[in-house]
């Protein structure tokens, strides 16, 4: 089998199995970085309007917060996540990964101006191609799309589809509307068409508070509340029928914390039994649908005291197919290479580190077969 042949070529990682990192980060250093990728009109607009001098960091991802950059993963200058050399030494080489799927969580995707959002997303994807993918063959990328205009987002997916190094589409967990709403379906349609999962990353457009009845006061609240947003996203994706409409679509929750899911689904299943006639396209228990369609990256992994939490998660979900290893480079959740909440010698480790990623991202195989250019 082709897959087996590829495996033979893989570097063996620090864990003794081949590894695919399903969530590591590229950060746009500044607007100036992407100016060369804009056309004449937008370049002039950015200069005349002073846009080149502002930062589009998301409130949910402040570069100076300790969690945003592990001390040894912070470059001497600039934001964590902007330095390819550090990514190579700190993550790709340190773990021995075969591929790292990079995600760019960036405010440009959240702009209210739909046209400006679309052009800056195109610019970032061009920049990622030239400055990251072309320079480092282990990297794969997620497509940054204008989240306030799903039609334009779908156009950007079409534009990247010919390059197999783009393997995923990035959305934020707390967008303009609940994630499963039909408004967002053009993105799901295009992603499914090209065999790309939608990577739903922690983060918000801040059109709504992270806590449902108002804005909190502190970063702490905002950070912890991301998990609630993932619960809402799970409810919305299943209830709105996204997986009934797009039966081949996979959604990858990135930086969700993971272990909130079984309890959420217990209540979802229970309540569904009583009111399922509201959503008759949901023909089996929500947990079964989630098991088929949703995947979760493993860092950060919310792990209350006790052993075997990851194994317990798989047991509660009746599945060893849902978890995807991530380093979450350059974010600070652990030290050294202590990123796997699991015994690397267990049979489950091989699935979490490698096999599950190959099953989730069909475009990885095409990219690794040498078809690296359109």
């Amino acid at each position: 089998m082709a897959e087996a042949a590829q495996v033979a070529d893989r570097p063996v990682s620090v864990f003794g199995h081949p590894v695919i990192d399903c969530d590591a980060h590229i950060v746009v250093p500044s607007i100036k970085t992407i100016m060369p990728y804009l056309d004449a009109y937008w370049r002039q607009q950015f200069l005349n309007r002073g846009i080149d001098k502002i930062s589009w960091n998301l409130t949910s991802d402040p570069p100076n917060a300790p969690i945003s950059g592990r001390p040894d993963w912070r470059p001497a200058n600039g934001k964590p996540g902007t330095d390819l050399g550090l990514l190579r030494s700190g993550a790709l080489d340190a773990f021995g990964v075969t591929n790292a799927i990079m995600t760019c969580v960036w405010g440009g995707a959240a702009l209210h101006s739909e046209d400006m959002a679309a052009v800056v997303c195109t610019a970032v994807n061009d920049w990622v191609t030239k400055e990251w993918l072309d320079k480092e063959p282990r990297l794969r990328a997620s497509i940054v799309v204008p989240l306030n205009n799903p039609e334009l987002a779908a156009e950007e997916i079409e534009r990247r589809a010919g390059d197999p190094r783009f393997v995923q589409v990035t959305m934020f967990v707390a967008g303009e509307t609940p994630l499963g709403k039909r408004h967002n379906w053009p993105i799901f349609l295009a992603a499914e068409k090209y065999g790309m999962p939608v990577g739903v990353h922690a983060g918000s457009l801040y059109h709504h508070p992270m806590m449902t009845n108002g804005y909190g006061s502190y970063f702490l609240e905002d950070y912890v509340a991301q998990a609630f947003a993932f619960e809402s996203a799970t409810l919305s994706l299943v209830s709105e029928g996204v997986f009934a409409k797009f039966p081949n679509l996979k959604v990858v929750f990135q930086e969700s914390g993971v272990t909130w899911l079984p309890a959420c689904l217990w209540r979802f299943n229970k309540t569904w039994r009583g009111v399922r006639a509201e959503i008759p396209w949901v023909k089996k228990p929500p947990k079964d649908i989630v098991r088929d369609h949703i995947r979760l990256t493993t860092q950060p992994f919310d792990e209350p005291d006790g052993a075997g939490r990851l194994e317990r998660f798989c047991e509660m979900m009746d599945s060893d197919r849902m978890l995807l290893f991530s380093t979450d480079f350059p974010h600070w959740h652990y030290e050294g290479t202590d990123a796997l909440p699991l015994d690397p010698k267990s049979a489950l480790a091989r699935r979490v580190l490698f096999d599950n990623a190959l099953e989730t991202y069909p475009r990885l195989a095409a990219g690794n077969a040498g078809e690296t250019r359109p």
Partner: protein
Amino acid sequence: MSKKRHVVAAVDEVPPGSRKHLNLAGREIALFNLGGEFFALGDKCPHESGSLCAGKIVGLAEADTPGHYRLSRDGEFVKCPWHGWEFDIRTGQSWCDPTRTRARAYETAVAAGETLVKGPYVADTYPVRVEENYIVIDV
């Protein structure tokens, strides 16, 4: 314990679309008339024992795609009044969990009074007249 045949109601007493609560040999039973056919279920939801006899009678809501709703088999399902679980009145099967969850179903039949007066049956306190038809349940 061998089953006994119980005469539970005259046919005219449970018209189509209606239901009747019974207590037969200590068992609570919900009797339903679906368009002239009679079905009897244990009057005890397998979830938390709510009375199915007190539930709403509904049809089967279905959809293959979001937004495209259809209703079929109207009147053939009962929703437990406590948590809304749906049961197929014909079989007692739960719609949400058909393999593991079902309400006990009892055999029913319609018998002419003429045959019933010959026995053997348990009429309980039910008076049987030769000229009428009766619903009987084996419990």
